[in-house]
C-alpha cells in the first residue's frame, strides 16, 4: 500500500471529511475518539496483519505515526 492509498483508507476508517496528510495531528481531528482507535486497530490488523493495543495509540501523535506502525 502506498502512502496515498493509506491516507485514502484512513478517510474511511476515521469517517472524516478533513484533508489528511501524514502530518495531520490526531488530537486535532474531532473524529479521533475511542471508537476511531478501535476502527484503526481493526484496519491495521485486517490490512497489514499488525496487532496493536489501545496503549500504542497513546504514543502516536500523527497519521504518519499510524502509517509507521503499519510498516509503511
Amino acid at each position, binding site marked *: 500500500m502506498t502512502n496515498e492509498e493509506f491516507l485514502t483508507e484512513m478517510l474511511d476508517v476515521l*469517517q*472524516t*471529511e478533513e484533508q489528511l496528510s501524514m502530518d495531520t495531528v490526531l488530537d486535532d481531528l474531532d*473524529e479521533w*475518539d475511542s*471508537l476511531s482507535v478501535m476502527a484503526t486497530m481493526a484496519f491495521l490488523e485486517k490490512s497489514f496483519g499488525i496487532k496493536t493495543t489501545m496503549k500504542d495509540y497513546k504514543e502516536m501523535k500523527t497519521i504518519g505515526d499510524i502509517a509507521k506502525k503499519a510498516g509503511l
Partner: protein
Amino acid sequence: MISFTSDQRYIVTGASSGIGESVALLLNELGAAVIGIGRSRERLDGMKAKAKYPENVFLEQKDLTEDIEGLPAYVKALKDKYGKFQGMALCAGIGRTAPLNAFDLSEARKIFDIDYFAPLMMTKGFADRRVNTGRGAAIVAISSIAGISCEKGLVTYGGAKAALSASLKAASREVGTQGIRINCISPSFINTPMTQSTPNEELLEKASKEYLFGFGTVSDAANMIIFLLSDKSKWITGQNYILDCGTY
C-alpha cells in the same frame, strides 16, 4: 405535534409496501423528504402516487441483498445524490415460517441476509459521519416480537430479528457520542402483504383469540416509528419497543 421540513431527508427501506410504505407516506405528509427504497419500481411508483407531496418523494429501486457488502458505499452514494440524511427507517424484511425439523441452512442464511445483514450494513453506511446530519439523526429498525418471545415455526426469523435488535443496541452505544439515536420496534402480528403471504394458521388463530385490540395495522407501527425518528423522542435511544396490545 410532529412535523418535519423538506430539507430533512429520510431513507425508508421496504418503502413500496406494508409498514415501510406507511412510514414513507406519513413522513412525507408531515413535511420530510423521503428516499424510498424498494425492489419493485412499479410498487414504488404506486407509493409515490399516494403521497401528499410527491415532489418530496424520491425513489430508488434496489434489492438490498444483491450486494450486502457494498451497502455502506451505496448509502454514501445516496448522500452524494441527495445530501446528508436526518434519519432512516429500516422496514425491508421477510417473514418465513419453518420449524426446526424443516430448518434449512441455506434458506436460513437468505433470511439472515434480508432481516439481519442488510439492515446492519445500511446502519453502518448511515452511521458514517460523512453521511448523516449528526446530532438529532435517528435510525429505527423493525425487529419483531419473534425476536423476544418466539412462537413455534419462527426458529430462523426469530433468530435474525433477535440478532438485529441486539446488534443495534451495541450500535446505539457506539454512535450515541455523535448524537445519533437508534431504536427498534418489535411488533406482533400486523396485517401486511408480508404477513399475509406467510400463512401460519396456528399463529393466526391463536392471535385472533388472544389479541385484546385485534391485529395491528401498518399505521400502528408507522406512528411509533415516526415518533422515534422525530426529535420528540430525543431522549430515547437503544430501546426495542414491543407493539402487541399487551399480548406477550
